[in-house]
């Protein structure tokens, strides 16, 4: 198994921390994992993305030329990554901010109103963790509990952020779970 | 006040700065070459000024100016 996921959005959306938390959770589970952030001049343009590769054997390249999953948090990210995603891959859309929909018919699209859900929690900044919750529910890439311990570890110095992120994670997870059950 | 200097002929390169500096003219470039091939400076027994009773006073000016640190100076204690 080798699954590569790209998380993409603009700076400040917490795209990099989504990827980091996923990678951290994979580490907790003893999986092989690489995390590659975009860097250099690209970062200054306001867009940010990172690639997380999770596998049960050695990972060759941390780069994903054809990612299995793409998490799209804003419009430019959709433009950039919709042609890269693997056929049969899953695209997660923040439906509150992404206006267009992918033109490709060979991919699975999952929409999550991340900002609305985060807003109900009273924390607009937690949209990223809402997304991560939904992402995990759908992909089962790692267990929910591993993501929860990862968040607890990563945000151990910031108690408030930790609590809020855990809440948001569950909201996103439950949202996708309910949709699945209702479908 | 009386003094005396000792010039290390093996170190001296004959630059002549001591000759220029000595207020009493008691140093001159000699006519002998040292191992490096320089005509080295020597302290004169007598000089025009010395004949007038003013020999080496041990003022150290020559040693201060000597780039080779080749001059030792002694002075009579008062």
């Amino acid at each position: 198994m080798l699954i590569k996921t790209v998380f993409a959005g603009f700076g400040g959306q917490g795209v990099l921390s989504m990827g980091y938390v996923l990678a951290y959770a994979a580490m907790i589970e003893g999986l092989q994992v690489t995390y590659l952030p975009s860097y250099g001049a690209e970062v200054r343009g306001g867009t940010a993305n990172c690639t997380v590769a999770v596998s049960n054997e050695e990972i060759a390249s941390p780069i994903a030329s054809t990612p299995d999953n793409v998490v799209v948090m804003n419009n430019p990210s959709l433009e950039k990554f919709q042609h890269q995603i693997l056929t049969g891959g899953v695209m997660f859309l923040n439906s509150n901010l992404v206006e267009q929909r992918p033109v490709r018919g060979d991919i699975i699209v999952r929409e999550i109103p991340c900002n609305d859900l985060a807003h109900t929690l009273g924390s607009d900044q937690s949209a990223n963790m809402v997304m991560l919750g939904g992402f995990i529910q759908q992909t089962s890439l790692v267990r929910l509990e591993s993501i929860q311990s990862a968040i607890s570890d990563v945000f151990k110095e910031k108690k408030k952020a930790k609590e809020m992120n855990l809440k948001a994670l569950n909201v996103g997870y439950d949202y996708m779970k309910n949709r699945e059950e209702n479908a | 006040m009386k003094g005396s200097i000792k010039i290390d002929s093996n170190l001296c390169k004959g630059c002549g700065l001591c000759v220029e500096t000595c207020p009493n003219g008691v140093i001159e470039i000699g006519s002998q070459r040292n191992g490096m091939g320089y005509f080295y400076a020597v302290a004169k027994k007598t000089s025009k000024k010395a004949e007038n009773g003013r020999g080496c006073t041990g003022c150290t000016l020559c040693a201060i100016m000597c780039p080779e640190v080749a001059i030792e100076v002694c002075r009579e204690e008062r």
Partner: protein
Amino acid sequence: MKKVFSRPKLLKPNPFHYCPGCGHSLLHRVVAEVIEEMEADEIAIGIPPAGCAVLAYNYFDVDMGEAAHGRGAALATGVKRVLPDHLVFTYQGDGDIAAIGTAETVHAANRGEKITCIFVNNAVYGMTGGQMAPTTILGQPTTTSPGGRTGNRDGFPLNLSEMLAVTRGSAYIERTSVTTPAGIRATKKAVRKAFEIQLQGLGFTLVEVLSPCPTNLKMSPADACKWVDTEMVNFFPLGVIKDITAPQENHDAH
């Protein structure tokens, strides 16, 4: 009779390799005397340059580590950061400190590195055979400024010490000469003061020493000294350029 002047103990007995009448060895003696008088021989670390004084480690009987051309201040920074209680000095010529090593020197001064640069300015490149130095004065002929340096063609003499005085990290900068006994005494005083300020941890210190290079000036040693005293000083005036320990002086940065 009592010995009133002899070779300092911190100068090894080796004969100097410098040309007759060169100011380098004079200055070596002065620096060695100061270290000896301060009883700092156990904590002194010298950084000789590339240039005529490249073999300075053959003369100074203290620990020494040789630097690449111009990099003395950077190397001294490394040494001093590891050994903050030591007396660290560079010994650099004009090409070394004011041309190829300008950046290293300016920034060491600006960081306020607690080191002392002994800057020997003889207005010409000695070791390479008499080419133009950053400090070659206007009108002075060298092998690469034939007919004499002109500002338009060759640029102007660089007043590095004045430049360094502007940096907030510099604590003490003085320009002296070794062309007369009085100048040598002033040089010794300046070196001692710089070392003391360094050990007090007050900042970057530098003593610029105007020094004769009879060979490349193509003059007798005595004439070379006179040339420094009458011509060179017009571009490089002697005296204290900056001293943050001096009373009643106003410095913006302090």
